[in-house]
């Protein structure tokens, strides 16, 4: 049962973040269509946006299915082995518990997301398309931060419960920028660095500049909110090395710092190299920095997979504060 809880929860949270990241990336990081765009840029943009659209549909379906799966496993676990499972009991959990009510509300939000995605797939004017994009982004962001209402923060008893939920919500929102956006940034780099187009390299350089700025803000917010969440879960600093939960948390922070190392190299070295390579007088091979950046992003992904091992164990461990 614990395995099922971990897997469904992990899958659902991850895909919720990705769904939000995809919308954010499209709204803020894919350069807008310009009249002066060359044919190569138009073709690339259409293909990339088409890929994001297909991804959105798949991610939405997985989000809904994993929500049902998460609800089912959670309900079975809550009912326990001593009680017979019947539809009235399931209905009771859906309507009379916070987890059930939030799940129903989120299902309604996801239905609206589906409507927006469908409407976006029809031919529309630029203004209507923009409204639909922002509406979709708002809805998926709401769906994501609503997870704070069914997590650790929601169960906090005492005067800080609202603050705990707010911090958790901000933390969740920030993850959709970084590392969530990292995935789509890597895809953008991979789709542009191999093409022999100066325009596309300039476009990738612009996306890199924007992503760096957004990531910097997101990492700062993640660090601050992560610290605050640590105060909510750790009773004493010595818990960080004396308790299993604290030791895992410490290891996770160290890996997070490793990801920051990759990010710092991207920001302070590779981003500047990419900018220099785009100067007209810059001679020679122009894809070196972009390729190095792409590999760094993959490196961040590798560290991320190590962090997930820690998070999976943290997920079933009681916090030292309890």
């Amino acid at each position: 049962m614990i395995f099922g809880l971990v897997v469904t929860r992990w899958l659902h949270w991850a895909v919720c973040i990705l769904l939000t990241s995809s919308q954010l990336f499209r709204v803020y990081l894919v350069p807008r269509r310009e009249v002066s765009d060359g044919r190569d840029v138009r073709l690339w943009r259409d293909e990339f946006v088409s890929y994001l659209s297909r991804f959105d549909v798949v991610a939405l379906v997985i989000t809904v299915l994993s929500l049902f799966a998460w609800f089912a496993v959670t309900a079975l676990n809550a009912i326990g082995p001593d009680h017979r499972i019947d539809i009235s009991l399931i209905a009771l959990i859906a309507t009379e518990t916070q987890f059930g009510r939030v799940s129903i509300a989120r299902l309604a939000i996801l239905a609206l997301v589906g409507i927006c995605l469908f409407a976006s797939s029809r031919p529309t004017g630029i203004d209507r398309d923009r409204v639909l994009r922002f509406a979709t982004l708002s809805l998926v962001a709401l769906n994501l931060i609503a997870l704070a209402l069914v997590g650790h923060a929601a169960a906090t008893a005492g005067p800080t419960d609202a603050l705990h939920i707010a911090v958790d919500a901000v933390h969740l929102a920030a993850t959709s920028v970084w590392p969530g956006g990292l995935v789509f940034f890597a895809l953008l780099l991979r789709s542009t660095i191999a093409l022999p187009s100066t325009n596309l390299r300039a476009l990738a350089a612009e996306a890199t500049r924007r992503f760096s700025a957004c990531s910097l803000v997101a990492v700062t917010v993640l660090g601050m909110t992560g610290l605050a969440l640590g105060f909510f879960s750790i009773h004493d600093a010595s818990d960080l090395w004396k308790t299993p939960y604290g030791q895992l948390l410490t290891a996770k922070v160290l890996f997070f710092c490793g990801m920051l190392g990759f990010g710092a190299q991207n920001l302070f070295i590779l981003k500047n190299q990419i900018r220099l390579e785009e100067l007209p007088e810059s001679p020679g091979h122009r894809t070196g920095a972009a390729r190095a950046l792409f590999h760094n992003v993959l490196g961040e992904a590798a560290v991320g997979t190590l962090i997930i091992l820690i998070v999976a164990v943290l997920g079933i461990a009681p916090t030292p504060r309890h």
Partner: protein
Amino acid sequence: MTRLGLILLLLSVATVTGWAHAFLDHADPRVGSQGKTSPSQVKIWFTEKVERVLSRIEVFDSAGKEVDRHDSQVNSTNPAILEVSLPPLKPGKYKASWRVTAVDTHVTTGTFEFEVVR
């Protein structure tokens, strides 16, 4: 699909919040206590808010017979308190058993004993 799997694996880094568990903070009557009067209810303070429909306390006598009034409920002013009322108890040892689901859906169970003495 492999790519999607890798993406999901990477993104799971974001699920950083550890699961909480509602543990017994303190109880009335106190854990392991001896009292000269029969308590009118068993009241447990948990470390987290618990769900009304998925949380219960049962009280058993030394013969294993349930003696509470089957009316477990979450306190109306503090959702971290669960209580069940009792009829007048005869002197003897009693075991309170609880199973609660916290608002974050995590389930915990436990027992403690108390005694009514003459």
